[in-house]
């Protein structure tokens, strides 16, 4: 956490009962508001029309391969961790038609699908997720390779961060340096403060748009004590995190470990199901599929999320180059934590913990990394790194 604050930054207090006014202000500006809501026993991201659709009074318990909703003892609006969906669902939709073509009298006519997207406001973006969006910005908007689908959605995006007031069972942003407090890159950031005496949000503005929005909703100046209290909440959240990843020298270590026997060990547990890449907020791979109707008249092209855990992903003439599950797990882990740095200048992991929670057999990348670092107690592979 750095302590520098942008000069435009204002802080204010928004009372919890005035939260609906924030939504009204967004709707008045014709934003489609996407935020957390309950669906199928989880907190998922969906369009929300009123604050009553937020998971008020709910929390979650997360462990490797396990997610359970639980009631809270208070009526907090944002008292839970990240759920199975990430914001990439909306910035890079999982299944999207790009164009259609029609053949008539021997002529081919192409119709490009409009990628015009609604103006979206994301409510409840967590600090790690804000970092994940920044990572995807580098992928989709970086250095001359601009993805029009992502660019269109991203351009008008308004981001309201919610600073994490509790760690989930699987996240480790503190050790990745991506949270639990975001200090820039948002329009507004809220810290929810709830106890017996008060229920309010400390609001921080991060842009002109955010500052304008704040002017439209009831707010009061924040006292130094209130600001300090919000920061203390973040520090406490960081202390709660039970998982850590030691990233120092990790890239080089993974580059040296291509033949490490631990790949086989984790490959024997991995189901190559692809869940980890689908839930990861930074994974960006997609495939393109063409289809033609039976009469051969109409064709269309779609793009869909893809994953390096699928055999087709590395299919070249003669077969897949990553045939074994261990080769596929190695691709995923080394891309996330090593080659990503060379490709995009940052880590491909922001420590959100989703891949741990949503792996059906609880494969935990922080544990796997520890095995390569030789830190697993009783590990037979301990000495390999020095070999």
């Amino acid at each position, binding site marked *: 956490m750095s302590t520098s604050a942008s000069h435009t930054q204002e802080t204010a207090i928004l009372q919890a009962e005035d939260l609906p006014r924030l939504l009204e202000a967004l709707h008045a500006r014709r934003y489609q508001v996407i935020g957390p809501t309950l669906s199928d026993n989880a907190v998922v991201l969906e369009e929300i029309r009123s604050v009553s659709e937020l998971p008020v009074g709910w929390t979650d318990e997360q462990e490797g391969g396990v997610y359970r909703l639980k009631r809270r003892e208070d009526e907090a609006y944002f008292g839970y961790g990240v759920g199975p969906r990430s914001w990439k669902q909306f910035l890079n939709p999982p*299944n999207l038609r790009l164009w259609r073509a029609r053949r008539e009298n021997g002529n081919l006519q192409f119709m490009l699908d409009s990628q015009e997207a609604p103006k979206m406001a994301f409510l409840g973006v967590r600090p790690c997720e804000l970092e994940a969006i920044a990572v995807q910005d580098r992928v989709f908007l970086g250095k001359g390779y601009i993805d029009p689908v992502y660019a269109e959605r991203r351009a008008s995006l308004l981001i309201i961060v919610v600073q994490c007031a509790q760690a989930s069972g699987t996240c480790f942003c503190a050790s990745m340096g991506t949270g639990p407090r975001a200090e820039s890159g948002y329009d507004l950031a809220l810290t929810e403060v709830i106890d017996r005496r008060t229920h309010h949000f400390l609001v921080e503005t991060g842009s002109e748009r955010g500052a304008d929005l704040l002017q439209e909703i009831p707010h009061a100046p924040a006292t130094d004590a209130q600001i300090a209290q919000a920061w203390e909440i973040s520090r406490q959240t960081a202390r709660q995190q039970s998982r850590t990843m030691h990233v120092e020298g990790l890239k080089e270590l993974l580059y040296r470990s291509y033949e490490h026997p631990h790949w086989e060990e984790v490959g*024997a547990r991995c189901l190559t199901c692809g*869940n980890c890449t*689908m839930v990861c907020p930074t994974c960006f791979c997609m495939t393109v599929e063409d289809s033609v109707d039976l009469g051969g008249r109409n064709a269309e092209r779609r793009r869909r999320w893809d994953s390096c855990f*699928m055999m087709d992903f590395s299919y070249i003439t003669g077969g897949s180059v990553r045939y074994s599950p261990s080769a596929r797990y190695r691709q995923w882990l080394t891309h996330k934590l090593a080659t990503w740095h060379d490709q995009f200048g940052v880590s491909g992991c922001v420590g959100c913990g989703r891949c741990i929670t*949503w792996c*059906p057999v609880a494969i935990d990348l922080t544990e796997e990394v520890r095995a390569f670092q030789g830190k697993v107690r009783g590990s037979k592979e301990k000495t390999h790194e020095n070999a």
Partner: protein
Amino acid sequence: MEVARKPKLAVWKFASCDGCQLSLLDCEEELLTIAGAVEIAYFPEASRAVLKGPYDISLVEGSITTPHDAERIHQVRRASKFLVTIGACATAGGIQALRNFRDVREFHRVVYASPHYIETLNKSTPIADHVFVDFELRGCPINKHQLVEALNALLHGRKPNTPAHSVCTECKRRGIVCVMVANGTPCLGPVTHAGCGALCPAYHRGCYGCFGPKESPNPASLADWWSRHGASDPQLVRLFRSFNAYAEPFRRESEAHEQSSS
């Protein structure tokens, strides 16, 4: 398939419930286009007209369970340019392959008044155990969109787009909340071939494995996870022993738990 005349299509039935053939009839809008694109030469379920072979495309439903069928499939193969098996019976032996794990003669004695009239093989086996199969379409029953896609691909001379990856992939692309992680419901999705569009998880149920084992399946790891979460060996046997019980990866897993429970 570059043929000037319309390609001849035949649909054959072996030991099966007819459900997969019905998927073809269920294609409604597409059926007319199919009928326009091919000549339906042999399809007793739909039409009495019988044209002589050879056939350009043969769709084969059902498994081999009798000595007679074990002969007949060779005739079908000889009469077909492209042989496509459809459904779990044809690709894995089907639900009737449950008998492969038991003594069939004992069933005869119990079920039939005159067991000597019954002529049947000890095992129900997939078509590919008997003849060369050009393409397998999975499912119990098959998905009609995949059937249209497979026919379409054959007619246009390209590879059918029926990915062999996990059901989980379809599940996540649809934004469905994982029933296994969020509810603790056993789900075969991570080891099962895609194709249904994650139908059961969309209705809060675990995947039953209708499309059989996916590419590089790892049932042992999944079963190990379940047993550490309280599943007994008999429960594990039942999970892997349904429509695709005799598909090798599922068969080996159920047998492993049968041995450890007996």
